[in-house]
C-alpha cells in the first residue's frame, strides 16, 4: 500500500517538472517581462538593474531552480496587469472556484451515474431513449450557451434566480463561502447546473457504455447461468466491474470541471480563478497564466492519486502487486 502510493507520487514528479518547465519558459521567453514591468519610459541602466534584480542574466538552469524554489513557496511574482502578488490574487479567488466545481461535480455524479446504469440495463425502454437524447443535446450544447439559456429563462423571464456573482459570502479565515447564506446558495444554482451538465452527460454515456460492455462478458453470463438474481448480477457483479474505468474518466472529468469553470465563471461573472485566468489570457498577463497552469497541474496530480487509490480499493488485481492492464 505504502509502496504503491510512493510509486504513484514518483510518477507524478516528471509531470510536475514538465509543467513547471513550460510554465517557467512562459515567464522567461514569452514577451518581454522587463519592458512590461518598466512601462513606457526607461533607461538602459534601469533596465539592466531590473534584469539583474530579477536574475534574468543568470544561466537558464539556475533561473529554473530559483523558479521552482519560489513556486514551491507559492511565490509567482506580481501580476503585470493588477500589480499585486499573484499568490494573493489566486488565493482570494480559489474558494469561489472550488465551491462551484465541487457542487457541479456532485451534481454530475449523483445524477449521471444512476442515469448511466439505468440506460445500460434497460437500453430499449423509452426512458432510456429520452435520457440518451437529452445527453446528446447536453454534449452538443456549448457550456456558455446552456448558461445563457438558463439566465434567459430563470433570471430574465422568470426573475427567480440571480444571474451573476456569488451572492453574500461568509469569511472563515481566508476562505469565503457561499454555502452558508441563502443568497449564496441561490447564486450557486444556475452556475453549478451549467458547469455540471456537460460532465453529467459524459458520465452517463460512459457508465452506460461500460455497463453494456460488462453485461456482454463471460463472467456475467456465468453469473446468470448460476441462477443469481438480476439484482445481484446487475448491481453486484456488473456495476462493480464498470467502476474501474468509470473512476478513471470521472477523475479526469472532475479535473476538467475546474478548467471548464473558466467558461461558466465568464458567463455568470463568478469571481473565481477562471475569470482571473481568462482576463490574464486576454491581457497576456504571464505570471497569472503560469501560476494557474501549475496549480491546475497540481490539482490533476492529486486527483490522479485519489483515482489510483480508489482503483486499489476496487480491483484486487492491483493488490497482488502486479498491475494488470489498468485504465485505458
Amino acid at each position: 500500500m505504502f509502496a504503491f502510493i510512493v510509486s504513484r507520487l514518483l510518477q507524478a514528479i516528471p509531470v510536475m517538472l514538465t509543467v513547471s518547465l513550460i510554465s517557467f519558459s512562459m515567464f522567461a521567453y514569452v514577451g518581454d517581462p522587463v519592458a512590461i514591468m518598466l512601462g513606457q519610459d526607461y533607461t538602459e541602466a534601469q533596465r539592466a538593474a531590473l534584469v539583474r534584480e530579477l536574475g534574468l542574466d543568470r544561466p537558464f538552469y539556475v533561473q529554473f531552480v530559483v523558479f521552482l524554489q519560489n513556486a514551491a513557496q507559492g511565490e509567482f511574482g506580481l501580476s503585470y496587469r493588477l500589480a499585486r502578488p499573484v499568490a494573493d490574487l489566486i488565493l482570494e479567488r480559489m474558494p469561489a472556484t472550488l465551491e462551484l466545481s465541487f457542487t457541479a461535480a456532485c451534481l454530475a455524479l449523483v445524477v449521471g451515474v444512476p442515469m448511466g446504469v439505468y440506460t445500460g440495463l434497460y437500453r430499449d425502454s423509452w426512458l432510456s431513449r429520452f435520457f440518451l437524447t437529452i445527453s446528446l443535446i447536453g454534449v452538443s450544447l456549448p457550456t456558455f450557451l446552456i448558461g445563457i439559456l438558463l439566465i434567459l429563462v430563470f433570471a430574465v423571464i422568470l426573475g427567480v434566480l440571480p444571474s451573476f456573482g456569488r451572492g453574500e459570502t461568509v469569511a472563515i479565515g481566508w476562505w469565503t463561502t457561499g454555502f452558508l447564506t441563502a443568497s449564496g446558495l441561490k447564486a450557486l444554482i444556475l452556475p453549478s447546473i451549467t458547469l455540471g451538465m456537460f460532465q453529467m452527460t459524459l458520465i452517463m454515456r460512459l457508465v452506460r457504455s461500460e455497463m453494456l460492455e460488462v453485461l456482454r462478458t463471460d463472467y456475467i453470463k456465468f453469473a446468470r447461468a448460476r441462477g443469481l438474481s438480476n439484482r445481484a448480477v446487475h448491481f453486484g457483479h456488473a456495476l462493480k466491474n464498470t467502476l474501474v474505468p468509470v473512476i478513471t474518466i470521472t477523475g479526469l472529468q472532475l479535473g476538467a470541471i475546474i478548467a471548464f469553470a473558466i467558461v461558466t465563471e465568464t458567463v455568470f461573472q463568478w469571481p473565481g480563478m477562471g475569470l482571473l485566468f481568462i482576463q490574464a489570457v486576454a491581457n497576456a498577463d504571464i505570471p497569472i497564466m503560469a501560476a494557474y497552469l501549475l496549480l491546475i497541474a497540481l490539482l490533476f496530480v492529486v486527483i490522479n492519486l485519489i483515482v489510483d487509490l480508489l482503483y486499489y480499493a476496487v480491483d484486487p488485481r492491483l493488490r497482488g502487486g502486479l498491475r494488470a492492464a489498468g485504465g485505458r
Partner: protein
Amino acid sequence: MPLLEVKNLRVEFPTRRGTLTAVDDVSFHIDPGEVLGVVGESGAGKSITGAAIIRLIEPPGRIAGGQVILNGRRIDNIPLDEMRHVRGKQIGAIFQDPLTTLNPLYSIGRQLVETMQTHLALSDREARARAIRWLEEVGIPGAAQRVDAYPHQFSGGMRQRVVIALALCAEPNLVIADEPTTALDVSIQAQVIALLKRLCREHGTAIMLVTHDMGVIAETADRVAVMYAGRIAEIGPVRDVVKHARHPYTEGLMGSIPALTHKVARLTQIEGAMPRLTDIPPGCAFHPRCPKVFERCRVERPDLMPTDGPNLAACWLHAPARGAREVGHAA
C-alpha cells in the same frame, strides 16, 4: 423418465439478410447420471443448443420452436424469473474460458457462497464451510487458505476447477459443459475432464459435454450426438458411433482422430468445409462433401432414422425404401 428431453428445438438469428437457423429441429434426451457428448465443427450449433437449454442465447437469437423438458416440466416457455431457479439449482453450466468466466473483482469463496445461498438455505458459516469443502473436492491445494483468494491468483487449470465447483455447488442434476477444456493447456485437459466425470458420478449428475474433440468424447461420454450445420447427423452409444459410424460425416470425423490423448482441431479427412448458415444447401446439408452422395440427398432432407445398429442417423443410406442402398453405392 429421461432427465432432460429436447424436442424439435429450433433457434433462429434474425439478420439483415434474412433469418439464420442456427439450430434446426434438434431432438435428443439425457438420462439421469448419463454423459451425453455433443460434437461437431465450430458453427455446427452445439454450443447454441446448450445455451438454448438454459435460455442464455445472446439476443437477437431466440428459440423459435420446439420444447425443452426437464424432469417432466417444460422450461423453454416459463418466465425468466422462474428460469432463475432452474439455472444453477437444476442445471449447472461450465464455460469454455476459465480466464474470463470468473468475476475478477470477487474472491472465489464469495462467488461460491453467493451461488449456494441463492439456491440453498445456508447460513454464512455453513456456506463458507461448504465452499471450502467444494474447493477441496475439485482439488485446490490449501483450500481453507485460498478460499479468500481472487481469480487472478490462480492458474488457468485451477480456475477451471473453481468453475466446476461453482457449477456443481448447488447440486444440479445436469451440467452443461461447453468446451470445458479447449482453452486449457493440453497437459491438464485430461485431468480436468477426469475430475468433472468423477465428481458427476459421485453426485449422480448428468453431463451434456459439448466439444469438438472426439478424443474427449470417446473417453468420457456414454452416448454421443454428432451435429452438422445446425442438425443432428447421428446419435447413439459412444462405442457404436466411434467404431461403426452410420453417417458418412461421422465416418470422416472418426478418421480424423489420432491418439486419444491428442487434441484434434481439424477434420482433415473430409473434403471441403461445413457450409455457412447463410447458404445451407437444399436436401442433406452434407451432400456436397459426401463421398456417398446420390440423387435423393440433393433434393430431400433426411431426418434421424433407425439404422442396422443402435444408432440413429440422418442419412438416406438407411432409408427403408428398397434400392436406395444399391443406388448409393453405385454413386
